[in-house]
């Protein structure tokens, strides 16, 4: 597949956003950008299985939670540092996805979606009962843990840089998957899985791999997020609403495009941030989010990028 110019603006764009808090030394901006990057990475990962292969993983947050728990456990009880713990967490999430995918990827459409919700809720309830993971109350870092990073204040910046790296890697990998032969196979599965199979696409292997990729990055994101948060508990790690926010961002930006989830995440975070602190709307932000989602589903199923691509043909090489 021919590659367009999307990455030539997407990566610098993300870098500009990421460097802004560093240059201005603004902690506030850092907090905001951290959340934006986290959303970008989560949305771009979900997009691999949902947008490319057409499998709507409704409970996708489960991999973020699993990654978070694995990394937190390693850091808290074993004393592993953030980056190695994060890599282990990502791999563990990906392996879990391979195992879970072996089973649930046989299901299709809405049934698959429900099954993924079931997986998330089951794992959440299980973790809630496991005392070595702290049960319902979860685990807390002792503040001393941040000393290895030069104190709490520096540790947050450290977490921020790691998040920037994870996000960039997610976006680039997601782009290369899309424009590769592998991506083409995934798209053929999305359009017509049976036909893809008949045409010689190893659909089972393709789906499993896509699912593993889309779980790997959330696993790492979870690791970084909970490192920064300093504590982890099941309600936060396996929060179904966050799962649906991920879908929302993918839909908002453009289902199946590489740049869509990035834009979707960016807009969504800003929108939510603004609505939440706006005295007029803060109590209605849920309703507004629902309304916007409904409008997208009904009138612009291609999301922002889909809309731009259909309006301006010239943009097709730039917006992929």
């Amino acid at each position, binding site marked *: 597949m021919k590659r367009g110019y999307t990455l030539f*603006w997407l990566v610098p*764009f993300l870098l*500009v*956003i990421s460097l*802004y808090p560093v240059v*201005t030394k*603004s*902690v*506030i*901006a850092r*907090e*905001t950008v951290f*959340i934006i990057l986290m959303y970008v990475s989560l949305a771009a990962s979900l997009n691999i299985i949902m947008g490319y292969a057409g499998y709507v993983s409704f409970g996708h947050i489960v991999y973020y939670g699993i990654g978070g728990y694995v990394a937190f456990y390693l850091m808290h009880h074993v004393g592993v540092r953030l980056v190695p713990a994060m890599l282990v967490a990502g791999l563990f999430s990906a392996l879990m996805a391979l195992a879970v995918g072996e089973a649930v990827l046989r299901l299709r459409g809405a049934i698959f979606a429900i099954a993924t919700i079931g997986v998330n809720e089951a794992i959440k*309830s299980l973790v*809630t009962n496991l005392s070595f993971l702290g*049960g*319902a*109350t979860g685990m*807390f*870092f*002792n*503040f*001393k843990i941040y000393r290895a990073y030069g104190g*709490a*204040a520096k540790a*947050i910046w450290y977490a921020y840089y790691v998040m920037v790296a994870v996000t960039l890697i997610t976006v680039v990998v997601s782009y290369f998957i899309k424009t590769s032969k592998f991506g083409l196979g995934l798209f053929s599965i999305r359009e017509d899985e049976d036909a893809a199979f008949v045409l010689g696409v190893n659909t089972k292997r393709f789906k499993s791999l896509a699912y593993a990729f889309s779980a790997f990055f959330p696993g790492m994101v979870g690791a970084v997020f909970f490192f*920064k*948060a*300093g*504590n982890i*508990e099941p*309600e*936060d790690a396996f*929060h179904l609403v*966050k799962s649906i926010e991920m879908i929302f961002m993918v839909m908002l930006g453009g289902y199946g495009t590489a740049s869509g989830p990035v834009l979707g995440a960016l807009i969504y975070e*800003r929108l939510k941030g603004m609505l*939440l*602190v706006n005295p007029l709307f*803060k*109590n209605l932000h849920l309703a507004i989010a629902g309304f916007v989602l409904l409008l997208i589903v009904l009138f612009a199923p291609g999301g922002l990028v889909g809309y731009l691509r259909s309006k301006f043909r010239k943009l097709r090489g*730039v917006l992929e």
Partner: protein
Amino acid sequence: MRRFLSVLVGLLFLGSILAGNVWAKNKIVIGFTMSQTGKLNAESKDQFDGLKLWQDWVNSKGGIYVKALGKRLPVKFVYYDDESSKDRVQQLYVRLINKDGADFLISPYSSGLTASAAIIAEQYGKVMVATGAASDSIFNKGYTHVFQIYTPASRYLTGSLDLLKALDPKAKRLAIIYEQSNFAKAVATAAKKYAEKKGFEVVLFESYAKGTTDFTSFLNKIAAKKPDAIIGGGHFTDGETFAKQLYEQRIRVKLVSLLVAPAVPKFAEIGKAALYVTAPSQWEPKAKYSKEAAQRLGIEWYGPTADWFVREYKKRYGEAPGYHAAGGFVAGLVLQKAIEDAGCLDSEKVVKALEKMNIMTFYGAIAFDTGEYYGRQKAHEMVYLQWQMKNGKLVKEVIWPESAASAKPVYPYYKKY
């Protein structure tokens, strides 16, 4: 394209630059989040109402006296809705500190949310007065800026056991139940330890999921163990429901002691199901803490009297205050005292003042641990209340400790069936 992008990036962040402007020091900004929505809404609102009453009280006197500036500074609140969820707590506290210029922080309601917020307070070195958060475990994480108003969870239900022992030395079988939350687990675990030490037999020690509304099967299971007493619980909704279903199923136990719910005045709405339920409470309007009591103990009395607080609160909100409201008020009061003692707004000096604090308020004694559990409340004591019938109306009476009691305990619980 590039121009378009730079405009976009520019616009996105223009707002945040403009908002971070410099402000003159003409007020003390206190930041916090409250749960305007979500499952903790009820308790959080009471806490906020108490806090708001303090703000108006202190501002009506011109504010808090700051010696270094030689004048009184009024108190300004900045607060957001945390939706009873940790998701945004940290982001919002970072915002409070950095963008809204909060000088001091008050915790959100509940141990879970406070634990999250405490990390931010510590990371930025801001003083946070923690109220509505009783968990002990927040205080052995190495924080040096978080100070607890509530009697910690480890001392929550111990009094209920002392009470039971005093009432009925033969009662041995104990069922301990708890909600799967930070706070309830801490309380239950501590109670179990204490019970075993005191020679009770814990026949059931089990948790239930947050948000549980159906305790039917759980109650069946409890009944099958034939306990003399049931102690435990979680927060308001589950506690109220538990008490209601306990009554509906006519479980025969001698003592029922539940967390949080029975202490809230609204508990009376379940009618006869509330009768004879006992509960630990951080504070009750009928508890007798006074200037005289403080003098007797040789510690400083600070702030308004309980009568004043109850009267003003009722005037304003139309109902008697519960301990969440009192906790809110006292959080402000403690901060006020610490700022006055420090004589300035510098966080580290206020921390020193808090370390040294040893006062009595209408809410009871206040002093903080400075050892392994730095910042944990060490002076304040729980009182134990029971819902009783007076002139055909349900009322809360303080029944334990005997020195603070306003009525005699009614025993056993199943007397009402």
